[in-house]
């Protein structure tokens, strides 16, 4: 029996201005398969799927569905052909209900009354039950958890009778238990005859759950093979294009040799006690947070987005007032002190959103590099800013931190993610700091940039800086942390020293499961909020 491929993309090319995102890629998807799409940031995997979903039209190449050539100009075309996509950042409107989100953008009548919403609701319920993805159609999206929202996204594709399902980093925002629940359901869908594309950079998942794997690199197809024919190391090598050591995968825990002095015996530089604060929504975002970081050590706070990391970052920076508790910097109480004072007392910050908080895009790199020191010597006095000093310092930092730019005058908004982050690092690490709060420092960066950041953090650590690392990335935590705690629903639920770090345990704790001896057993002790 010849299995006709469901989707056949041939020779797809796509440019964005000067940047060649796809340089002639072939991709084939068969019925009933789960196909993993692997690649670094910028490799083109999301772009390829965006082309399939009709978000972009390719500059060259053809797409065939069930052997018939098609032209997908808009997502509506793709949806009409049974293709559905679940994006990495959910495309749901938070203030609308689930049912309303389903109806949004639907073709059909001008009126959306109670009946139409009820029809949508019952259809949702039916699909939900069929695929084990139950969700309340009348709940407002902002009330749902991240895992539930993702279920809604998947349901939306199924609601439109998608037979080809594209999932972009589906497990990125899920806790371990939620991931455990998702993957078998995908398999069930595939067994029914649907085809699933799984975009990810998680090597373990792709090896365990897919039927075939395609690797892209710099917009080109590297290979398509079966999981049985390859390994994590081999895949990583294909992704990056050169032999990759375990170190770069973050698997090797000796990024910093364990014989190094790792802060024991130093005085604590950053002490947080009983910290509590509210979120924008009025709920309690942090509850009784206590952590202490000594000079020369890295303490990681791991957790899935939405569990309080953002608020913790803001409270430490001084952007948000805590409702309770204290923050001390080297003995000084900084709980209610301005951001400027904290910077002066030796706090450095790498914000989680580099474009929104780390840089001012419309200003040149030179000014961004001294953003927090304008008005201080040597960049000027309170009455005068010295452009020459700024330019000189900028040139120096650009070289020291290998920032790829045309010069200090280039606008920060033109830099790529990795370079932008280098600017932020350069600014923060070149100052005399005692404490560093690094929030998601490698988010969205490729392996090369990640390495760079990790190396600089390690360098700071060795110089005696106390580093608090807020991260959602387990690789990062495993590579850098001297101690790791987990933030779940606003509370610190577990803590381990370096030699006890174990990916599975941490992952489970991030999902609220603490204290079980083996993840394979049914979790009985689930931490709930009091």
């Amino acid at each position, binding site marked *: 029996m010849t299995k006709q491929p469901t989707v056949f993309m041939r020779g797809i090319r796509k440019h964005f201005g000067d940047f060649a*995102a796809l340089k002639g890629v072939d991709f084939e998807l068969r019925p009933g398969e789960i196909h993993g799409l692997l690649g670094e940031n*910028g490799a083109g995997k999301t772009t390829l799927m965006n082309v399939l979903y009709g978000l972009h039209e390719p500059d060259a190449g053809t797409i065939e569905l069930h052997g018939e050539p098609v032209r997908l100009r808009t*997502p509506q075309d793709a949806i009409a052909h049974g293709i559905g996509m679940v994006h990495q950042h959910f*495309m749901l409107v938070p203030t609308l209900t689930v049912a309303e989100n389903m109806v*949004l*953008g639907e073709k*059909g009548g001008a009126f*959306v009354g109670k009946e139409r919403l009820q029809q949508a609701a019952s259809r949702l319920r039916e699909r939900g039950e069929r695929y084990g993805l139950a969700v309340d159609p009348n709940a407002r999206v902002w009330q749902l958890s991240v895992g539930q929202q993702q279920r809604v996204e998947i349901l939306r594709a199924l609601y439109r009778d998608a037979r080809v399902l594209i999932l972009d980093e589906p497990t990125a925002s899920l806790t371990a238990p939620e991931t455990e629940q998702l993957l078998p359901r995908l398999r069930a869908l595939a067994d029914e005859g649907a085809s699933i594309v799984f975009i990810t950079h998680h090597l373990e998942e792709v090896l365990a759950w897919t039927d075939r794997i395609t690797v892209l690199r710099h917009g080109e197809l590297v290979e398509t093979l079966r999981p049985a024919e390859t390994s994590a190391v081999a895949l990583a090598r294909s992704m990056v294009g050169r032999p990759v050591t375990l170190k770069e995968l973050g698997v090797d825990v000796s990024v910093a040799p364990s014989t190094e002095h790792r802060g024991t015996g130093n005085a604590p530089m950053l002490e947080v006690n009983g910290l509590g604060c509210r979120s924008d929504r*009025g709920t309690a975002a942090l509850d009784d947070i206590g952590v202490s970081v000594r000079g020369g050590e890295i303490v990681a706070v791991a957790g899935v987005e939405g569990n309080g990391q953002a608020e913790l970052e803001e409270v430490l920076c001084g952007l948000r007032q805590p409702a309770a508790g204290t923050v001390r910097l080297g003995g000084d109480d900084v709980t209610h002190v301005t951001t400027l004072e904290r910077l002066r007392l030796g706090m450095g910050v790498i914000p989680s959103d580099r474009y929104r908080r780390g840089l001012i895009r419309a200003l040149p790199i030179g000014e961004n590099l001294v953003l927090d020191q304008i008005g201080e010597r040597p960049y000027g006095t309170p009455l005068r800013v010295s452009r020459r000093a700024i330019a000189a310092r900028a040139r120096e930092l650009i070289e020291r931190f290998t920032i790829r730019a045309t010069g200090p005058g280039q606008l920060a908004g033109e830099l790529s993610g990795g370079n932008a982050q280098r600017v932020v690092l350069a600014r923060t690490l070149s100052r005399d700091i005692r404490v560093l709060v690094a929030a998601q420092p490698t988010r969205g960066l490729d392996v090369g940039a990640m390495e760079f950041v990790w190396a600089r953090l390690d360098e700071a650590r060795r110089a005696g800086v106390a580093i608090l690392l807020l991260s959602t990335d387990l690789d990062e935590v495993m590579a850098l942390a001297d101690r790791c705690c987990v933030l779940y629903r606003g509370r610190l639920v577990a803590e381990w020293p370096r030699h006890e770090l174990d990916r599975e345990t941490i992952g489970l704790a991030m999902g609220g499961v603490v204290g079980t001896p083996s993840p394979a057993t049914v979790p009985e002790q689930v931490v709930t909020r009091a």
Partner: protein
Amino acid sequence: MNWSGIVGVGLFASGLQLAMPTALAAVGEAFSERSGVLNLGLEGMMLGGALGAFTADYYSGSAAVGVFAGVGIGVLLGALKAFLSVTLKTEQVINGIVLVIFVQGVTAFAYEKLFGSGGTQPEIPALHTVRIPGLASIPWVGPVLFEQNVLFYVSLALVPAVWLLLQRTKFGLAVRAVGERPLAADSVAVRVDLVRWLALLVCGAMAGFAGAVLVIGDVSLFGTNVTAGRGWVAIALVIFGRWNPLIVFGGALLFGVMDALQLRIQAASGGSNSGVPYEVFQALPYLLTLAVMVIATVAARRNAQPAALGIPFRKEVIE
């Protein structure tokens, strides 16, 4: 002071009539802001609509023609605002103020050109009160709601229509989505900029209509400052009403009643020789609006402001 003479059916009847233009403009503004566009040009749109309505009524003798002209001008100005904010994506705060300055200048000239300055003030005939038989006999409510001019009735019908448009149509759903998370709407092929354009046209139409109601229904004349800041008050009321057209409308009407109350107290207390200076009464509505806006902003437990308000939509290149 004769309170029973001041507070009564007459107060509410005139209060509601007085408030109607502001209330209509506020509903239009709520619609625009729900789609994510901050329209600070509202005062200008009302003024433009007022002039258009006045001129058309004066020369044609027909109130209906006047109303259509007012709405038409309002729609045109809404389109201008949409062009500046949605197409060109210039700073919405600035382009709104620019629009007001533009309209104030052009209407001043147009009025002077058409009607000259000095001499007798041109007037248009006042609208008759239309008494709805039966309903107008209901005690208390009847004379207040059902003994008004025809524009009042049209306004009362228009506002629920706008609410229905927002809450019960696909377009309204798109408006609400686009004001909260335009990227999400875009991903399901909703055309964000088009929806915002249309929302601004609706806002402009409401504002133009409000201007028409003001000059044709209320004051029967035109002056360069006939709107007297109603547009700004309307914008404050949108915050107070938490961007819900019905609450906004209700709040605006409540305000009108208080405004009418203030006028009556001022008149009853003997004018310029009494204890309380009449400037206090003049300032009172604005002071109250300010207070109400501050309280609404401060006390809001969950932020009801549309998340994408004021941010032009730019499609981001997905990696």
